[in-house]
């Protein structure tokens, strides 16, 4: 059958040179590998015929390990050494993992990222992920009896720099050549786009166990353009299980206190939920330490529990439509991804909102890996490379810290990548010879609310008056969404640059919170920004006036000088407060009070300039 490849347009002429490229969905709970075979993308099964590989690794003494179903079966007997859901730790520091106390792992701080202490030694999340990826690599190589040329690996649309870097590092550790990291919803659309021959604007609604992603993509003549992406990284089917469990306990006045009881109710709730996708009622039942729980659940009850969750997903959908400046009626189709989209009421709510029935004909668990496989096949130059092009965007804005701990946005979110942008900055003080460049990611206006990605310093700027230096800071984001930043002082030519490899990234919860906050507190942000701007202006004014006094104070009478000094003192005192209007008023008073002095200085400056010119002309 492999001979068929010869006739594919753009394919390698020699069948022995055909490159084996796969798509890998490296998921939180499970992972899959898929490849295009005979022109069709399909998930590759293990020797037992299972396509899903649970994302679980158990470490044993003497360097041995079990991976996948075998490891998952052992999680209860050896929780400390059996790592599950490691994706949540990718690119994270210890401080980022808030629920550390509730997890059975022995966390240690590692270099740039946390590590997990096991009987097999300390393991970083990158190593654990690499073990999962290597298993999938071997599965693919066994399937094709050939070496792997490369892989496309999917990441959540919200993955930031640190998480993308960590994912890439894990693949390299597993001996996999990464052709490209692509976002999960994009991969899903690729799978649907090609199979259904669709054109137009598509929404990808991805509701998993713990996260919700929404992306808008435009498909035109084989070009996949991500128009906008958004979501809520702390919202998923697990929340519905919790809501249903809570409701059931209230019905029979029971409570689940111990960890085992909590787990048991959640498992029972999940089973009832899944049953209700097909049946009208189910029984939510499990033994608890306080007695037997058995509650009959009608589908309507599940719908009631799911309503607020579905409403939250639709709020995120509205936000993305606004970002993209499109109306919901312009969306040609909706692609459903993630196990939670199997629920009829989710499908019904999405259908009602968009006014069309969502696409559900591909398996929602497999669709991401399938799309990644199609993209990998194209990138490896096998076939279809001329028909398929993916134009992706960055999920979060990138910017710099400026005076007053404000964030100057350089590349706004949803910019198509690769992209590069430059902006000029200047010095704040006379004679300033160094500039600290602080790179940030996020949507908020103030530094403390954004994620710090990297810092570096530009040194050796020749001493100049404040505002004379021209420092051009350039941001470049490559096609994988990875950032590098450089700074150059234009007059002297001094340069500094950094590839952003942050020691830790944003937690999903933090991203969700940052995004939510930036929407809900836009007004508060603006007033906070206003106060900071006033403070910066006050400081600028103080510095400028003092240096003017030092240079040209001889122009002033004793009385005039005293009155300016008084205004300076008033402003110096006032700028410590939090009343923006008082600061503005003090700045205004100083500006008015120094007007005549400024005119005198201007005259002196013009005289000197003219004098200088005459000298030159002679």
């Amino acid at each position: 059958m492999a001979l068929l490849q010869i006739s594919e347009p753009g394919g390698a002429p020699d069948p022995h040179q055909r490159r084996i490229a796969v798509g890998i969905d490296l998921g939180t709970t499970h992972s899959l590998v898929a490849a295009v075979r005979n022109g069709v993308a399909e998930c590759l099964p293990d020797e037992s015929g299972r396509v899903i590989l649970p994302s679980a690794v158990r470490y044993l003494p003497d360097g041995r390990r079990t991976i996948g179903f075998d490891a998952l079966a052992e999680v209860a007997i050896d929780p400390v050494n059996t790592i599950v859901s490691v994706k949540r730790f990718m690119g994270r520091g210890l401080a980022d993992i808030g629920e550390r106390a509730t997890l059975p792992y022995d966390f240690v701080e590692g270099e740039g990222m946390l590590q997990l202490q096991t009987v097999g030694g300390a393991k970083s999340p990158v190593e654990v992920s690499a073990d999962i990826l290597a298993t999938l690599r071997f599965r693919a190589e066994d399937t094709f009896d050939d070496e792997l040329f490369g892989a496309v690996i999917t990441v959540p649309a919200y993955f930031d720099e640190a998480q993308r870097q960590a994912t890439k590092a894990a693949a390299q550790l597993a001996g996999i050549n990464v052709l490209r990291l692509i976002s999960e919803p994009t991969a899903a659309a690729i799978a649907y786009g090609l199979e259904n021959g669709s054109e137009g604007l598509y929404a990808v609604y991805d509701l998993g166990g713990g996260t919700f992603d929404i992306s808008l993509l435009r498909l035109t003549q084989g070009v996949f353009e991500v128009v906008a992406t958004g979501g809520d990284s702390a919202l998923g089917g697990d929340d519905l299980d919790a809501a249903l469990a809570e409701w059931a306990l209230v019905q029979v006045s029971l409570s689940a206190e111990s960890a085992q009881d909590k787990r048991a109710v959640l498992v029972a709730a999940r089973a009832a939920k899944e049953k209700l996708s097909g049946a009208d009622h189910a029984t939510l039942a499990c033994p608890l330490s306080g007695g037997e729980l058995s509650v009959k659940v009608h589908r309507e009850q599940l719908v009631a529990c799911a309503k607020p969750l579905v409403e939250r997903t639709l709020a995120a959908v509205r936000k993305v439509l606004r970002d993209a400046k499109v109306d919901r009626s312009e969306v040609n189709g909706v692609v459903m991804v993630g196990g939670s989209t199997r629920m009829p009421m989710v499908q019904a709510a999405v259908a009602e909102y968009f006014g069309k029935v969502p696409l559900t004909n591909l398996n929602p668990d497999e669709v991401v890996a399938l799309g990644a496989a199609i993209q990998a096949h194209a990138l490896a130059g096998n076939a279809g490379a001329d028909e398929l092009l993916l134009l992706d965007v960055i999920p979060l804005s990138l910017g710099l810290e400026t005076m007053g701990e404000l964030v100057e946005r350089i590349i706004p979110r949803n910019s198509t990548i690769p992209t590069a942008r430059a902006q000029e900055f200047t010095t704040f003080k006379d004679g300033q010879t160094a500039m600290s460049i602080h790179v940030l990611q996020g949507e908020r206006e103030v530094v403390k609310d954004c994620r710090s990605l990297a810092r570096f310093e530009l040194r050796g700027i020749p001493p100049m008056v404040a505002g004379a230096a021209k420092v051009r800071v350039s941001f470049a984001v490559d096609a994988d969404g990875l950032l590098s930043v450089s700074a150059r002082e234009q007059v002297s030519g001094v340069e500094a640059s950094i590839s952003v490899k942050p020691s830790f990234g944003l937690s999903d919860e933090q991203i969700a919170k940052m995004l939510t906050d930036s929407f809900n507190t836009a007004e508060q942000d603006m007033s906070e920004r206003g106060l900071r701007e006033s403070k910066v202006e006050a400081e600028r004014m103080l510095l400028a006036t003092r240096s003017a006094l030092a240079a040209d104070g001889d122009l002033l009478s004793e009385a005039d000088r005293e009155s300016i000094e008084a205004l300076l003192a008033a402003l110096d005192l006032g700028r410590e407060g939090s009343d923006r209007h008082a600061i503005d008023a003090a700045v205004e008073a100083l500006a008015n009070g120094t007007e005549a002095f400024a005119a005198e200085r201007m005259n002196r400056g013009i005289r000197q300039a003219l004098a200088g010119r005459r000298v030159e002309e002679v």
Partner: protein
Amino acid sequence: MRGVVPRLKSPGRAGAIAGPPPNSRAMKLDSDDFELFGLPRRFELDRGELDSIWRALQAQVHPDRFASEGAAGQRIAMQWAVRVNEAYRRLKDEVQRAAYLCELQDCPIQAEDNTTMPPAFLHQQMEWREALDEADSGAQVEAIARQVAAHRGAALEQLRTTLDVAHDFAAAAQQVRALMFVERFAQQVDQQLEALEP
């Protein structure tokens, strides 16, 4: 290596610029945005055509087209893809496109140095701002948003005449500066709408 330099299909429109048709020469990274996209240097522009040229260009220069061709090919492709995205971003935004046209004609916008506006315009801005401060329902804010959008549409039409008919770039620069105020206000209206969203 396949051709990194994109060669464009002629857009087939009555050219407003003199010179050889776009497909007869190789593009350079420092070609202006209009040259790069093979579009006449004017304000009026068919968004659908711009989008399809952008996709055609990206299909030629995107690093994915050179995924298996090593670091040097990737670097060059990256430079081109970045340049094409930069031009696209500028051309698709009416105000940025107008500002760019003014700059190409040596009439820079200098939005930061030149904030003098006609009193009538400033008066209107103040009225809008007051209305926005007082608005406390989504419907009221949406009404302001509609007003601003209508004003913006009219201003863009006027700008088109100034640029494409009168070729008065100094006057256009002034209109662009005014539109920048309008856009900033429109952003605040959007933020307010988002804040009111449940």
